[in-house]
Structures are given as C-alpha cells and as structure tokens.
C-alpha cells in the first residue's frame, strides 16, 4: 500500500498559506493590547496554589498476604520502604503489558504496509512481543514473591500510563504507516530502558540481588529492542529521503 509519510500536499497550517490574510492577522494582533498585565507565569502560580492543597494520584496498596505483611515489616525494621519497590514494579508490569499491545499494533501495520531494506521483519516484531510478555510475567512473579498484588494499578504505573498515552493512540491510528508508528515504539523503548535500569539499582539497594539479576537479563533484551527500533527508523527515513531508483524499497 502506497502512503508516504512526508509527501507534498496542500497543508494549510502555516502562516505562508495565505499572505493576504496572514498580513491582516499579524497587524490585528500587533495593534491589540492584553486585557490584563503579566505573563505565562500566572498559570504556574495557579498551578502551585492547587499543588499545595491537592492530594497525590493515590497510594500503593497494602500487602494482601501474611507473607507480604511480614516482608513489609522486615523491610521497615531494616529502614527500607518496600512500597517504593512495589510501586516501581507495578509500573513495569503495566508498561510491559501495554508493550505487548503496541507490538501487536506494529505487526498489524506490517501486513498492510510491508517493510523496507533495514526495516523490521515479522519474526523480529513477534519476538519482541513475546519478550514484552515474558517481562510482564517476570515482574508479576516478582511482585507475588514480595507478597504484593500484581493486578493493582500503582501510582508510578498510573503516571507512566498517562505520560505515554499517546503511544498506543498513534499505533492504533490507521492513518499512520509503519515507519511513522516506529516513533511510538522508540518513545516506549527509551522509557522502558531507563526504567529497567532504575529498577535494577533499586533492587540492589534493597538487597533483592536475585531479582536484580533477573531484571538485568530483561534490560539486556530491552537494549536490543531499542537498538533495533533505532536502526529501523534510521534505515526507513534515509530511504524515504532518497529519489528515483535509489529509493526502491523505501517505506510507504
């Protein structure tokens, strides 16, 4: 299917679209005065006032099992707060699961648009989907081992979902081709890599060395994902920028 991401067309959003109207619009804006003095910091101040009185997004649920309660108590005696760990584990669980759905969307695009020289293959996308699912399984089991509830939405998970809500949105959009949607995967993989790194540090800090080793293996795999997504984008964008015969096999 032919659909270049950056084809030439009748885009009307810029000021140069209509020299006559834009001249008038600019004159009108220059001649008017604001109705009140100040600048954008007025918005920050209002935000600060609300921040001072509003509560946070929510909390980490208490452990639902006796084992979990015992672990929380031991951690507290050692001066640690296991809730921070559970919060971040909940975040990875949610993100990896969303990651599965993202790669499913990418796979569905591959069937419509095909790939390009240096672009993703079906096998690669399917492998990454499985990796994301197995990382979700790893985190789920880790939370269970700690006596936590892996089905709970923790504040860190909620936050990361809000931050990245545009990614599944873009991947699901039938107007977005495979190369364009890789930008969404790049956003997700960058955040995922950084988050696994932090999780490993935190696991070591809290003395969960076995978990840290498992997580390190997950990070190794995520680093591969990131490198692959970057290389697919680079190959695709460079091909798209070429002309004539050189552009054979460029993304559509």
């Amino acid at each position: 299917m032919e659909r270049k991401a950056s084809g030439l067309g009748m885009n009307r959003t810029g000021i140069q679209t209509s020299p006559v109207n834009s001249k008038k619009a600019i004159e009108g804006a220059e001649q008017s005065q604001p109705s009140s003095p100040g600048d954008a910091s007025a918005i920050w101040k209002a935000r600060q006032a609300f921040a001072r009185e509003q509560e946070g997004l929510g909390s980490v649920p208490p452990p639902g099992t006796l084992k979990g309660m015992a672990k929380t108590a031991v951690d507290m005696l050692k001066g640690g707060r296991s809730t921070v760990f559970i919060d971040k584990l909940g975040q990875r669980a949610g993100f990896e699961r969303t990651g599965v759905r993202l790669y499913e969307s990418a796979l569905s695009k591959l069937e419509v648009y095909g790939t390009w020289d240096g672009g993703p293959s079906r096998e690669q996308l399917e492998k990454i989907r499985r990796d994301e699912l197995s990382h979700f399984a790893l985190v789920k089991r880790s939370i269970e081992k700690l006596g936590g509830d892996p089905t709970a939405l923790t504040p860190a998970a909620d936050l990361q979902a809000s931050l990245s809500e545009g990614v599944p949105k873009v991947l699901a959009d039938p107007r977005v081709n495979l190369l364009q949607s890789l930008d969404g995967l790049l956003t997700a993989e960058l955040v995922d890599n950084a988050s696994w790194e932090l999780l490993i540090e935190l696991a070591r800090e809290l003395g969960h060395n076995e978990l840290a080793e498992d997580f390190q293996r997950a990070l190794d795999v995520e680093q591969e994902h990131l490198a692959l997504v970057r290389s697919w984008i680079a190959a695709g964008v460079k091909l798209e920028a070429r002309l004539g015969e050189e552009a054979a096999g460029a993304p559509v």
Partner: protein
Amino acid sequence: MALDLFKEKGVPLDRQVFTWKDLTRRLYSKLDNDAFTRVRVILMNGIESEALRFSHACARMNRQLREPLALIRRVEQHQQTLVNWMNPPDQSPVETTLGFEQVAIEVTASVAQHEPDPYLAQAYRFGMLEDFDHLYRYSALYDRLEGKDPNYLIQSYSDIIPGRPTSIEHRHPLDDVRRPYDARTAAPLTKIHALTITAAEHQTHDYYMTIGPMFTDPVARMLYAEIASIEEQHVTQYESLSDPDESWLEKWLLHEAVEVYNYYSCLQYESDPRIKEVWQRFVDYELGHLHYVMQLFQQLEGRDPAEILPKELPEPIRFTSHREFVRKVLRDEVHLSAKGTEFVPRTEESERTLRYRDQLNADGSPSETAAAGYRWRPGTELAEEAERMGTYGEGRIQ
C-alpha cells in the same frame, strides 16, 4: 430519619454561590477511592445534565417560566460543573466509560428492585442487561488496545461477562417506545425512578457522542458509535415511561425532587468525607430549588405540591454491588426482546426490528469484533498467556 421534603427548606437561592476555584478543586482518586464514589459522581453529573436539558426545553415552551427557570438553571449548571470536575484527569475517556456502564448496571439494578410498578421494573431489568453487556465490550477494548485491566475501575463489584449481546440489542425505534405510568395513580418513587434512569442514560449517550471520535482505533470508533446508538434507544425507552400528560410545572417539580433524592442517596453511602461534604451541600441547594418551585406550582397552577411529592423521601438508591440480582436477571431474561411496548421472547421480534438490525450489522458488528473470544482475567487476558511463558526472553534477536 427520612428527609421531610416539606419541612426541610434547604439553602435559599441567593446563598447558592461558587467561585471558579471552588468549582474545580476537588478530585477523587482513581486509585484510592471506592468505585461507588466514581459511580455517584457520574450519576450526579447525569442528573444535573438532565436538569439543564429539561430547563432549556421548558423555557422555550413557557413564557411565564423563562425567568425562574433561568435563575435555577444557572445554579444547576454550576453544580454540574463542580460534580463533573471531580473526575480526575488521569482517568482516561475509556476508563470513565467503564464507570458509566457500572452506573447503568448497579444503579439500574437498585432501581429495578425498588420499583413498585411491575411493568417499569421489567423495563429497568431489560435495559440493565444491555448495559451489562456494554461493560464487557468496553472492557475487552480497554484490555486489547492498551493492555490494561478494566478491574482497576470496576473493583470486582460487577461481573465482566457478556449480557444480552450488543449486536442484537438494535431494535426498530417503534419497538423502543414503552407505555407511560399514569401520573394520577403512580407512586412518587415510580416517577423519581423514571426520571433518574432517563437522566443517567441521556448523559451516557452524550458522553459517548463526545468522546467517540477522539479514538484513533477504528474498532473503538465503531464501538462507541454502536453503543451510543443503543444509549439513544435506552433514552427513548426510559423517557417514554414518564406520563406525557404531566404539566410542565409538574415535571419541573419532579425534576427538583429527583435531584434532592439522588444527592440524598449519595450522601447516605459516601465514604470520602471531602465528597460527602459536596453531597450535603447540594442536598441543601436542591431543597432550596424544590421549595422555590413548590411555591410557583401553588401560585401558577393552584395545586398543592403534596399531590405530587411524597412527604418523606423514599429509601435511597443502594450504592452496592447487585451481583446476585444481575446474575438472576441474566439467567431468566437474557432471551427477551421488545415488540411495540411489550417485552417478548426474541423469537417473536418484529419484522421491522429484524430488518433494521440486519441493515446496521451488514458490514460486521464492532461489539463482536472488539470482544471476539474475550474472557476477562485478573491482570488482563494477557496474564494467562504470560503465565505459560518463561520469565524473560531467551536468545538474541537474529
């Protein structure tokens, strides 16, 4: 102690005031609040939205009432703002949608069990089974688009399983118009119920019509289009239960009583003190509106409001899980459809409904596509597949 509608005067209209900050500063927590707090907020937004809708229609048709309606309507608009703005911004449109369907299940189930008129009770059970199915369809969509668990929102109070399948809920308009109660003989609670559920469903329709086009996924866009169409059917059904021969003022009086009743119900069940404060404040505001309209009713129609209103408010809506009731209705009544004003076995559906449904489903059914083979599991349908796998990816990508 039940609330005496004639004795309790509430807050007079000139003391019902707001500021922009007051209207917007309270939020419930998507993570920590009980699911029924969200249910109450969504319900009350619907009740206030109906207050405005009715008030505008009434003002266009009644010269004498235009000014009193404008006065009260402005307060109701601000009440709706305050209520609706309690929905937190980290609650996405599809998450709020799950809340809307939980309202339609649990509030309608409570109403169906308390409704004294057996025909209306049947209508509520009928509609409830359809909304019950919508929860299942939207849950599948949420799980499959974003990999998230619908039970974050539902909190295990409601089952996430198929009801009367959405794809066969489509009926010809003339098979959605019901028989109205008789205003002269109907119990006040019957009138209150009909308005309450009409309000909730109308807002559900309007919400889906607003957010449906914001989705990128084509199945999501079609699913919102499909379910919005059913919500329109539900509004047609529920509004047709009210007696069309009630006068405009009588209807206005009933609206104000419905608002008192619903806020009062919220107040009885609310566990969050910050939000309980809002319900108390608005019970008092609504009592003020009710007494204002009672006076108008006496002056303009020369009738005693006691003809219409119960002395004391009936038992509040029960904001609790009605799982067993819903399951029983599902077992006994999932096979029903409607023909004209009557509920009939699906085998007796009208020709016009069959033709109408076949036409709409001719290119496929979004609700069937979204939930094909879907079974909810704690932690999403992916949790099961994940359990069958190893803990981390083996081998390098070639």
